[in-house]
């Protein structure tokens, strides 16, 4: 049944390409979102449905991430209907097909236990997401798409080289060359250390580009800034989580090979750098969507730091993948609404969003408090847990830096968000007829409710999923 998670989205993508009605085509997305979520839940709940293949395996980590992506896609798919109806004059054939195809490829990334297949799926997800950035068909979106494609392709090419290095490290260690994740994991102690380290660096750069870790994040503000909000949500919550999972796979191999210290150091450096770069560029940021992009860079940094800290922070890190995904959904969807109501995403024009869009304005503000780790929202729990992990591991310097950078981001981001939501909307400029409707507000509200719920109590099934993921990450069966 695992293949249905990949094939169903691809089928819907094919249908979208064939269906001639621009007005009705967007309804394929909620159909796919609902179907995918139901399938995911069934596969998670019924062990009989989770039959693994050689290369396609849904392990503990995969179960957590696929649920995350599926939930996010479900809400995004409802939002997308409203979005595409608002731009009803634009052709949405390619958009709907690529949006659906992206879900299928992400599912494949998450379930791949063959590093070659993993690479193919990640590269595929880069390619199908390019037309999504280009949806607005203007000069700025061309520029963003070009940078995304070029930086992304080169990054992914390096990941391919790293993948080959990893296979060669088996050969150099006297074993048959292989790209199968499970075989590499089993034979990890015998891998050639030099080639393994080189492979880790290349894969960290490659999949780090896809995640948007600094200094490979340069495409991110442009791509997130110019693409529709709903695409940004799927990028910041879906693609990044899947790319992080790819990085975790490589980390697992390093861990089994006894190279944890090497991998952790690099992860900590890149993670802290990402948080710092994000903090610096968030200060004085006027563009709401670029602000969210830097916030995404920051949170990828937090995930890298969490993974780098090690065992003590695994629970917090994996929980943070969930929380970041849901909260980014809230932020991008509400910002998209605000951008359409003001016909701008710059705080020069966007003022008093509270008055014009009471729901989206409030959601942006609540989402800001959530993503910066304020209680009672979910990211507080996971960020606190990562911090505690750092302290328990005796990494006091890391913990101190972590806190300072979180504070920096809070100040920088708060300045921009408060400007946008408070005060009075400017007269005359940037007013459109757009207001919150069901499709625009309900998905963001739903995601926000989840963020709040997970901040107050982590339901048992989710706790079990995260525990299962931690066990898989630690290498226990």
């Amino acid at each position, binding site marked *: 049944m695992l293949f249905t998670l990949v094939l169903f989205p691809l089928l819907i993508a094919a249908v979208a390409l064939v269906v001639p009605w621009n007005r009705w085509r967007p309804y394929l997305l909620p159909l796919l979102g609902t179907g995918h979520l139901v399938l995911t839940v069934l596969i998670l709940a019924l062990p009989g449905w989770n039959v693994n293949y050689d290369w396609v395996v849904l392990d503990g980590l995969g179960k957590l991430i696929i649920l995350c992506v599926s939930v996010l896609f479900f809400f995004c798919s409802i939002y997308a209907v409203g979005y595409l109806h608002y731009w009803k004059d634009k052709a949405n054939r390619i958009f709907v097909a690529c949006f659906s195809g992206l879900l299928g490829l992400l599912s494949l990334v998450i379930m791949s236990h063959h590093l070659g297949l993993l*690479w*193919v799926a990640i*590269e595929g997800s880069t390619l199908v997401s*390019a037309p999504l950035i280009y949806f607005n068909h203007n000069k700025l979106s061309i*520029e963003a798409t070009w940078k995304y494609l*070029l930086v992304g392709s080169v990054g992914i090419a390096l990941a391919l080289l790293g993948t*080959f290095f990893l296979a060669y490290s088996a050969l150099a260690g006297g074993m048959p060359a292989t790209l199968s994740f499970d075989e590499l994991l089993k034979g990890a102690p015998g891998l050639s250390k030099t080639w393994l380290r080189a492979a880790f660096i290349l894969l960290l750069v490659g999949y780090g580009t896809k995640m948007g870790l600094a200094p490979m994040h340069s495409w991110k503000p442009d791509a997130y800034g110019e693409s529709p909000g709903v695409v940004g949500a799927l990028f910041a919550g879906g693609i990044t989580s899947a790319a992080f999972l790819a990085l975790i796979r490589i980390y697992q191999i390093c861990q089994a090979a006894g190279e944890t210290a090497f991998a952790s150091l690099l992860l900590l450096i890149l993670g802290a750098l990402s948080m710092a770069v994000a903090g610096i560029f968030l200060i004085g940021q006027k563009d709401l969507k670029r602000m969210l992009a830097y916030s995404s860079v920051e949170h990828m940094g937090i995930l890298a730091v969490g993974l780098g800290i090690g065992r003590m922070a695994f629970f917090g890190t994996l929980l943070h993948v969930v929380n970041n995904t849901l909260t980014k959904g809230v932020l991008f969807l509400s910002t998209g609404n605000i951008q359409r109501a003001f016909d701008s995403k710059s705080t020069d024009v966007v003022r008093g969003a509270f008055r014009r869009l009471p729901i989206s304005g409030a959601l942006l503000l609540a989402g800001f408090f959530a993503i910066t780790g304020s209680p009672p929202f979910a990211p507080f729990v996971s960020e606190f847990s990562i911090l505690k992990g750092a302290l328990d591991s005796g990494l006091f310097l890391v913990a101190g830096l972590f806190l300072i950078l979180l504070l920096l981001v809070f100040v920088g981001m708060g300045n921009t968000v408060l400007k946008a939501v408070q005060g009075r909307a400017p007269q005359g400029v940037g007013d459109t007829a757009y207001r919150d409707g069901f499709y625009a507000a309900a998905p963001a509200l739903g995601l926000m409710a989840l963020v709040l719920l997970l901040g107050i109590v982590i339901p048992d099934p989710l706790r079990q999923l995260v525990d299962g993921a931690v066990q898989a990450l630690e290498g226990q069966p």
Partner: protein
Amino acid sequence: MNDVLNALLMIMLVLNLFTLGSSRLVTMIRIVAVQGILLGFLPLLFHERLTIPVAVATLSAIVLKGSVIPAIMLRALRDAQIKREVEPLIGFLPSIILGAVGTGVALLFFGQLESGHQHGGSFIIPTSVATIFVGFVLLTTRFKAISQVLGYLILENGIFVFSLLLIEAIPLVVEMGMLLDLFVGVFVISIITNHINRAFSSLDTRKLVSLKE
């Protein structure tokens, strides 16, 4: 077998330098096509028997890299009505010298590294590293969108050379997936270059500077 292989790899390296020295984009596209065809044939040296999967993979790689991708690129070039890369960041002759030095360094360092393994005595790893280096030079010092795409293709070719060491580890499905990704990638990129050309009346990527802090 190693002699034939090494001779072909040497041709690869020479072709690399040709791309660095050529200002005519059509010539560059043709050289990269020849390189692609050459690369397509290389895996045959590693198989004792020609099975159907091997034949399928070889044939699709040759057709894709030798004719489909060059055709897409030439079409993009015709639509954009440009012929030459003008004013690169590093001139053509200095580029060749840079490429030659890079190739020499790769041969010197990685040539030794490989000995002792089962593929000892072949130039696979140094050729791969040198080709990747040349790809990066083109990507970073040329400003026409098409030259950058060619740089990316050469980079991919270099990575493909490395995969010759791992032939038994890469299943057919994955290999076909990689080729498909390459095809779709070039296809999407050529559409975008076409749009760049229409929106900016040029393929000069230095005009893409509106998005910044």
